[in-house]
C-alpha cells in the first residue's frame, strides 16, 4: 500500500499562489475528504498528487510529495507509472470516445495488465478483466448486454461508475476523486458512495467535496483548506466534534461556505 506524504508543497499559477506550504500525511486505507470553500485549492491539491497539474501551462510546484518515500516530483519519476498507482476520478465523468468495453480495457491495455493477468492474456482474459472491474464498480448488470455500445450513450450516473471501473482497472493503490458525485442525481450519487465504502478496504481514497454532509457520511479523515492554507486535518470524528481553529468552526457551522 502506497503511502503519501506531502512536504512544504507550494503551487502557483503564474504569479498567483494557490497552495501555500502544505504539510500533510495521508492515512492509508481510509477515505480522506478534502473540504473547504470553493477556490481554496482543493482540486489543485488533489491533482498535485498524481501530477495532473503538469498538464496546465504556467503552473509551478515546489516542495515534495513522497509516495512510499520517493518524491513524485523527482525529474526521474515515470509519470505514467505514478498515475497508474494513483488513479483519478473526475468531477464530470468524461467517458473516452469508445465503447463501454474499450473504456475499461483501455487502462489494462496501455499498461499491459491484461497480458499479464490470467496467465497469458488474449481476448478471453481481457473480457474477464473488464467484467471484474465493471462488477467492482457496480455497473456490470446494467451494461453486460451492450458492452459494444458507445460509452457516451450511458446515463451520467452510469458514466461515473464507468469512470470508477476505469480507475479500478489500472489497479491503483490510491484513488483521487474530485467531487465525484457533484454532477450526479441523488440515486447515482448514493451508488457511488456505497462503492467507495466498499473500496476503502483495499484502497486509500482521497475525496474532494464541497458537501459537508457527504464528508460526514463518508470520510474517516478530514483535511480542511482555506484560501490555499491547510487549516487543520484530523480524524473525522474529532474534526466535527472538536475543531481547533475558528475558521473550521465557522465553516462547519455554515457561517462561511
Amino acid at each position, binding site marked *: 500500500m502506497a503511502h503519501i506524504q506531502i512536504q512544504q508543497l507550494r503551487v502557483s499559477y503564474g504569479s498567483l499562489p494557490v497552495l501555500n506550504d502544505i504539510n500533510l500525511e495521508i492515512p492509508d486505507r481510509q477515505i480522506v475528504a478534502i473540504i473547504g470553500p470553493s477556490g481554496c485549492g482543493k482540486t489543485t491539491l488533489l491533482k498535485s498528487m498524481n501530477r495532473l497539474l503538469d498538464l496546465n501551462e504556467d503552473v509551478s510546484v515546489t516542495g515534495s510529495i513522497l509516495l512510499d518515500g520517493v518524491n513524485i516530483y523527482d525529474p526521474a519519476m*515515470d509519470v*505514467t*507509472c505514478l498515475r*497508474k*498507482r494513483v488513479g483519478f476520478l473526475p468531477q464530470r465523468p468524461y467517458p473516452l470516445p469508445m465503447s463501454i468495453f474499450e473504456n475499461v480495457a483501455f487502462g*489494462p491495455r*496501455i*499498461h*499491459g*495488465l*491484461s497480458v*499479464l*493477468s*490470467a496467465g497469458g492474456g488474449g481476448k478471453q482474459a481481457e473480457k*474477464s*478483466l473488464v467484467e*471484474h472491474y465493471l462488477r467492482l464498480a457496480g455497473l456490470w448488470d446494467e451494461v453486460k448486454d451492450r458492452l459494444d455500445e458507445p460509452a457516451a450513450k450511458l446515463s451520467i450516473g452510469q458514466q461515473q461508475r464507468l469512470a470508477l471501473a476505469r480507475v479500478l482497472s489500472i*489497479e491503483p493503490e490510491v484513488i483521487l476523486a474530485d467531487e465525484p458525485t457533484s454532477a450526479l442525481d441523488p440515486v447515482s450519487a448514493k451508488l457511488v458512495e456505497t462503492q467507495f465504502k466498499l473500496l476503502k478496504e483495499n484502497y486509500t481514497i482521497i475525496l474532494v467535496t464541497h458537501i459537508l454532509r457527504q464528508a460526514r457520511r463518508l470520510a474517516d479523515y478530514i483535511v480542511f483548506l482555506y484560501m490555499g492554507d491547510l487549516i487543520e486535518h484530523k480524524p473525522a470524528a474529532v474534526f466535527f466534534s472538536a475543531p481547533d481553529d475558528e475558521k473550521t468552526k465557522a465553516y462547519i457551522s455554515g457561517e462561511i461556505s
Partner: protein
Amino acid sequence: MMPSGNKQFIISRLSGGRRIREALALVSGRLVLILINALALLIFCGLLWKAAPLFGIISVSDWLFSSSWHPMKNQFGLFPFIVGTVSVTLLAMIIAVPVCLGAAIYLSEYAGRRFREIARWLIDILAGIPSVIYGLCGVLVIVPFVAFLGELMGSTTTGYSLLAGGLVLAVMVIPFIISISVEVLRMVPDPLRECALALGATRWETVKYVVLKKAKRGLLAAVVLGFARAFGETMAVLMVVGNVAQVPVSLFDPAYPLPALIANNYGEVMSIPLYDAALMSAALILMLVVGAFSLTAHYTLLKIGETVDS
C-alpha cells in the same frame, strides 16, 4: 482473475516499448512541423531565387511602374498587370461587400436557426464550386450581358472586360466573405443584443449601434480575407477578363491581371531567359500581397477570441 504480482516489475518491463513509441512520435511530430515551415520557406525562396535574375537587368521601379511589357526586348514592366489585378479585385469587392454584409446580417440577426443552417450549407456549396465553372458561367452569361450593357452605354466591347471579371470574381468571393462574417457576428454575445432591445431599440437599431460596433474588426477581417482570396484568383477571371496588356481606363476595357499573366505564359517561357524570371516575380508579388493581407486579417483583426471582447 485479479492482475497480481509485482507491479513495479510490470511497469519497468513495459516502459521500454512505450517509451520508444513515445519518443518516435515526438520526433516525427517535430519533423512534420519543421517540414511544413520549411515548405513555406522553400516556396518563398524558390520564387525569389527564380525571380532574382530579373533585377540584374531592370530596376525595381521599372518593374513595378513601367507599362512596357516586351519580353523579346527584355522589357518587363508589370504596371498594366498590377493595375489589372488591383482594379478587378477592387471592383469585385465593391460589388461583393454590401451584398455580403446584408446577407450575413440577415442570417445572423434575423433568420431562425434552421434557416441559417440551411443557408450556410448552400453558401458552403457555392464556395466550393471550382473556379473554372465560375469562369464557364461567366463566359456563357456575364460576358454577353456585359457586351449588351456596353452597347447600351455606347462603348464598343466584346464583353470580355474588367467589368465581367469583377462580376465573376464578386460572385466567387461572396460566399467566402459571408461565411466568415456570419461566424464573426454570431460571436457577439446575446446579452448585448438583449441590452439594446430592452431599451426599446428596433432590431435594425440593435444591429447598427451594438452588433456592428462590436463586430466591426472581425467584419473588416472578413473583407480583407476576401480581398486576398480575390487577388490571387486565376482561372475564372482569366476566362472573362480579356487579357490585353494595357492599363484599362473604362469598365468595358479588357484587363490583364497578374495571375492570368502567369497562367497564360508559363510553360512556354523557356526560350526567353528572363521571361521566366519576370513571371516568377509576378508570382512573388501575389504571394507577398496575399500573405500580408491574410496575416493582417488573422493576427491584428481576428485575434481569435478577442474579436468580440476587445
